[in-house]
């Protein structure tokens, strides 16, 4: 009896009222609307599942909606979906009060589809800001034409952030949406009665470009351009996840060599992403030499990518069926040697940084995300792994070359800025080791195969540099997108960001933000 059948039996035992089906890619549960909360809570509490994504879309026939709540069980490496068709005017029970990780997913669904949730503590003004968008707009509904201009105004400058701190003399200090040198657009409202940040709110989606909406009705190739570009700094990871969804849909077997090279590029992107995060972290503490040295390394990786693949951010490389990049042995040798040099420089920098007491004073016990809080919010990626959470899709749901080459997953337990610093360096080392292993054992053969498009839907996931990302794709028989949904690592980690700010001094805001290493462009889509 294999693991899946065992799990199906276990789930049937735990949830006796409804069925558990093996639908190939995942185990599907079909509870009634009333049993949704109970099912989700059982999955999280009794089965040790992690919440992955919430995908809503219009039913193929009829008026209502189909909701899919994805979970995964990391030890058994299985994906579980709750499949819930509902009527157009149904009110969903919110699962976010016990499963806090789902809170922002539900806010997004409520905002973009106009689906009602009952029992959610904080709805509205999320993707669509009340200040610029009219009430009752639901842009993700099929009948909404993205080419139209919305002229109806929002409430304008009357909009004020919700005040959480009720104390005499308390002030709300806004940071954003235009702020500091090269910072991304976003608003952080810091509430204080003196020196320390007591409460704070992150207001994202100033950069909402509606990529999921404008992809609808487009060809899969065209949407791939969007998948690469909405984030940019994790372009390869998102193109990879998108292509994985397409390939699953088409039952396409990607050649071994392409699998290995995809993992090489994904790890190269991770190293670059972490080097950039470390440069920002050093810069936020005014450690100018450290920042400069890290930026030099980042530039070195970008030049290496540009020289080998033609694009500094690996755009245009990952395509359905494999890779649009076929390196020769000399190029692979360059990659191997350069990555060795880069890691040596980074190791040396780490030794210098951890022996700089003025730097450590700024990051030690700073921006602490306690392991229990990290668990509650279901944070992902390096931020989670620095707070004692063992979540990494490369191990939890292995894919591609990671099935045979499981990477070492570093972990820290303190959850402060220093733990995150050490973790970024440890992940860079682990990625280097993996790249070298993959390059020495690189299989021969083609790097691309035919990927004929088939109508259907599938979920693709990868561990992006900032954490796990899930792409849901639904395509019709004309190879056009019916629904594309991206669950970004930012949805989870920005949600928990305010907990790391609690009690911090104002000047530490920048440092804590830098230590989280999150992209606004990636979560705003």
């Amino acid at each position, binding site marked *: 009896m294999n693991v899946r059948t065992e799990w199906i039996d276990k789930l049937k035992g735990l949830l006796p009222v409804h069925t558990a089906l093996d639908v190939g890619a995942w185990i599907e549960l079909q509870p009634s609307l009333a049993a949704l909360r109970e099912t989700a809570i059982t999955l999280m509490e009794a089965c040790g599942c992690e919440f992955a994504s919430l995908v809503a879309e219009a039913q193929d026939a009829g008026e209502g909606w189909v909701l899919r709540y994805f979970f995964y069980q990391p030890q058994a490496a299985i994906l579980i979906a709750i499949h819930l068709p509902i009527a157009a005017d149904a009110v969903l029970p919110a699962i976010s009060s016990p499963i806090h990780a789902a809170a922002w997913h539900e806010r997004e669904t409520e905002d973009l589809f106009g689906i009602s949730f009952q029992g959610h503590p904080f709805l509205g003004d999320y993707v669509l*800001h009340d200040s*610029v968008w009219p009430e009752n707009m639901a*842009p993700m509904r099929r009948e909404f034409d*993205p*080419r139209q201009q*919305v002229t109806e105004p929002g409430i304008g400058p009357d909009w004020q952030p919700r005040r959480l701190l009720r104390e005499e003399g308390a002030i709300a200090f806004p940071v954003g*949406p*235009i702020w*500091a*040198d*090269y910072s*991304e*657009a976003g608003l952080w409202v810091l509430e204080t009665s003196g020196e320390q940040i007591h409460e704070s709110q992150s207001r994202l*989606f*100033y*950069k909402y*470009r*509606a*990529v999921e909406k*404008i992809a609808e009705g*487009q060809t899969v190739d065209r949407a791939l351009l*969007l998948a690469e*570009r909405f*984030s*940019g*700094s*994790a*372009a390869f990871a998102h193109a990879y996840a998108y292509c994985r969804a397409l390939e699953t849909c088409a039952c396409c077997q990607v050649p071994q060599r392409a699998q290995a090279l995809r993992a090489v590029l994904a790890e190269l992107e991770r190293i670059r992403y972490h080097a*950039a995060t470390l*440069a*920002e972290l050093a810069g936020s503490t005014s*450690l100018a*030499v*450290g920042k*400069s*040295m890290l*930026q*030099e390394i980042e530039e070195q990786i*970008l*030049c290496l990518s*540009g*020289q*080998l693949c*033609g*694009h*500094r*951010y690996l*755009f*245009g490389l990952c*395509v359905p069926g494999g890779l*649009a990049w076929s390196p020769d042995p000399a190029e692979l040798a360059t990659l191997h040697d350069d990555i060795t040099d880069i890691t040596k420089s980074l190791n040396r920098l780490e*030794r*210098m940084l951890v*022996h*700089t*007491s003025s730097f450590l004073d700024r990051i030690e016990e700073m921006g602490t995300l306690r392991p229990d809080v990290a668990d509650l919010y279901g944070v992902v990626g390096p931020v989670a792994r620095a707070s004692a959470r063992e979540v990494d899709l490369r191990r939890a749901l292995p894919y591609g070359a990671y099935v045979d080459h499981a990477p070492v997953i570093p972990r820290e337990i303190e959850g402060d800025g220093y733990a995150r610093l050490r973790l970024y360096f440890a992940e860079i080392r682990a990625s280097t080791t993996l790249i070298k292993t993959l390059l020495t054992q690189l299989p021969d053969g083609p790097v691309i195969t035919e990927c004929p498009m088939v109508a259907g839907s599938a979920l693709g996931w990868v561990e992006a540099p900032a954490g796990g990302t899930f792409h849901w794709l639904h395509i019709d028989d004309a190879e056009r997108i019916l629904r594309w949904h991206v669950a970004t690592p930012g949805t989870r980690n920005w949600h928990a960001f305010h907990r790391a700010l609690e009690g911090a001094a104002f000047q530490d805001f920048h440092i804590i933000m830098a230590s989280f290493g999150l*992209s*606004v*462009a*990636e979560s705003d889509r």
Partner: protein
Amino acid sequence: MANWTLTSLVLGTRTLRWPHREDLPLGAVPARLHGLTNEASADQHFSSNETPIWVARTATSQGPLPARFRRSVRVRFVDAGANGALISELRLVDAPPYNLHRFGIFITASPRDADVLLVAGPVTKAMRGPLLKAYQAMPEPKRVVAIGDEAINGGVYGKNFASAGGVAEVIPVDFIVPGCPPPPAAIIQGLLAAAGQCAAIDPEQSLMESVPVGDTQ
């Protein structure tokens, strides 16, 4: 205790001689500026040995700032929906290889002190207001440099309910720098053109043709 001062002295000057000498390393100028899979032909212009001219004047450009600004320009950056790669390239204009400050160009915190507004992104609905406010707060004379394909014509997003389809739809633009993302050297060229330190391509020969058309359908 690490000695950062000594380390930096030992490392010596790390800044390139570019643009006075052609010493941009391999890969600093990408072979495919827009990163489109089948778009290599449009980008061949950029694969020669010499540094290409990326920056172009718009048809309505006021030209560079008056001569007295030549070696002292203050820049305010506004992110109106830029992708992370562009933000990352922008952060590198300050990095040792490029060192923006040697040209007398500095980033300023407030638009009230700024001579140049550097804008990226297709101008999302929520950033339209803040962008306009920042532009209006700037004293005359002022110039606007739009960087990245999305800021020029909306790029892959085009014009729709969420994106204005380029900076020029909201405020007048003087210089454009194409690329997705434009590399740090190109962004610096854009700023140098606004300062009057380097030439920009005429609107007639504008690089707009090599920018992918951003229709949404």
